[in-house]
């Protein structure tokens, strides 16, 4: 499927904020099931914008504003051709899978989560991961009010509610406690309804197969509607936008994300 993403994020500051910097992980890379046809990242303010790759191989745009700002809009537009690979992701990997057994605070399991993960039926790794995804999908209910971006896996697990980020964190924490390397993926899910489409899921390492993407919130392996943008140990590594500033008072944030099947070329 050809997915078109059009995505505008506007930060508003109560007072002019000085020294605004942003780290953007908003540009996807190619892998075997995904080819970026065109992609643009624009920051609607004067300043320095540079692109590089971070340690995980993600595209990282760093922006530093020239002047104090009262608002900052980041606009991302692009089209990507995505093929259904049944969740298997083949791409150049800068790290050995073992690196993704490390658990930073957001994905550190508490005893309850560890115990729950250990109840996953035994078997080959791939079957266990599917079992884990099914159980997690049963266990958690989708609720946009229950958690925030800072909620850790075990906390969301206790509430048994959360959003795609929490599904991914719990899946990752459980897989790692079973000794399976797992990582966080941020991206987009192409939708036909008008719902906002920034999305997150998880990838786990299966011997002899490689990295496989599990979207526990939807109980599917990532297919042709999943556009993979950035990976990391947890949300903080792969977050689309992180920033810092001096002053500026209260911050307001408005996000408009649209990811949908690209229209055919106009012909008449």
């Amino acid at each position, binding site marked *: 499927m050809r997915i078109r993403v059009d995505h505008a994020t506007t930060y508003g500051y109560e007072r002019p904020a000085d020294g605004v910097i942003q780290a953007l992980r908003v540009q996807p890379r190619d892998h075997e099931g995904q080819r970026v046809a065109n992609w*643009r990242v*624009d920051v609607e*303010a*004067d*300043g*320095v*914008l540079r692109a590089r790759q971070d340690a995980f191989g993600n595209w990282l745009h760093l922006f530093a504003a020239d002047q104090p700002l009262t608002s900052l809009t980041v606009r991302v*537009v692009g089209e990507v051709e995505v093929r259904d690979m049944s969740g298997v992701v083949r791409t150049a990997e800068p790290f050995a899978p073992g690196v993704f057994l490390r658990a930073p605070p957001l994905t550190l399991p508490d005893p309850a989560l560890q115990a729950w993960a250990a109840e996953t039926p035994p078997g080959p790794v791939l079957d266990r991961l599917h079992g884990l995804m099914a159980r997690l999908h049963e266990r958690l209910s989708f609720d946009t009010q229950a958690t925030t971006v800072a909620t850790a896996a075990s906390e969301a697990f206790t509430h048994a509610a959360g959003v795609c980020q929490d599904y991914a964190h719990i899946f990752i924490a459980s897989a790692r406690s079973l000794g399976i390397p797992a990582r966080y993926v941020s991206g987009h899910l192409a939708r036909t309804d008008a719902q906002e489409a920034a999305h997150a899921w998880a990838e786990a390492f299966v011997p002899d197969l490689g990295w496989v993407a599990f979207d526990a919130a939807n109980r599917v392996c990532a297919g042709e509607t999943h556009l993979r943008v950035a990976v990391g140990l947890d949300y903080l590594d792969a977050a689309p936008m992180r920033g810092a500033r001096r002053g500026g008072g209260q911050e307001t944030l408005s996000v408009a994300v649209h990811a949908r099947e690209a229209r055919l070329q106009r012909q008449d």
Partner: protein
Amino acid sequence: MQMLSRTAASLFWTGRYIERADFMCRLLDATARLASLPSTYGGDPTAWTGALSAAGVADAFAATGLEPSEAAVTHFLAVSADNPSSVRHCLERARGNARAVRTALTLEAWEALNGAWHEVDRFAGPRFTQGRMGELVETVRRAVLAFDGAAHRTMLRGGAYWFLQLGAAVERADNTARLLDVKYHLLLPRDEAVGGSLDHFQWVTVLRTVSANTAYRWLYRDTVKPWLVADLLIFDSRMPRSLICCYAEIVERLDQLTHGSGKRGPANRTAVTILRQLQDTDIDKVFAAGVHEFIGRFLADNARLGAAVAEQFLF
């Protein structure tokens, strides 16, 4: 990219003036064809007045106090010293700018431009006659192609080349938009009754002025329809003189120019905004909102971009 602002400005304006000289030549050629048709068959007695408007020099011509006859207008557009946009004047400015930054150009590119200027200079003044108009147009057209070819084949892909191309793209967008603005009353929406042979020849003239006659037939395989002409010249990204194609190039050149330092400023922002506006609309929306208003806004936007480039690169 390290370059003096003055050098950047000279390259930018070299690109603009060469592009304008080329447009003037094609305008002269297409108008001569239109005016030479018998009026019963579509020949247009106002063709030369229209050409003055398309060139954006109607006021300057009025100031000369001459009748807009073929001879007077041709002289004015081709070689007149009173016309800041005459072919001769454009080449003079292009050469002046290029000479100031001679070492930023390759020998081949410089020679193409310098040679054209010397040839055209011989046409100037009282020795210029109507009969030599065709010769002039042909000389300049060939020289512009030679310059573009030389730049393409010999120049390093760096700041100098990008500024040259940026100037050319800004000017190209401006020329196409001004041509459309003069003929906007002919660009009728779909389903509107198509006029007689007069309109047909007007549209063919528009297409010829932007070298799009063959492209049109290739793309549409149809008789000349006004809404298709408008669509081609505004929204078709395959058409090198369409507004959207010019803006895609402008955005790309500005990205290239700012890639090294990462410093993005008003020119980057303005260009991206204008390109996005073009991408977010289509020909039916333009007709609904008014072609004249649309083009007027575009011309203002394009002028704003020119100013933003000057601001960002300290011209």
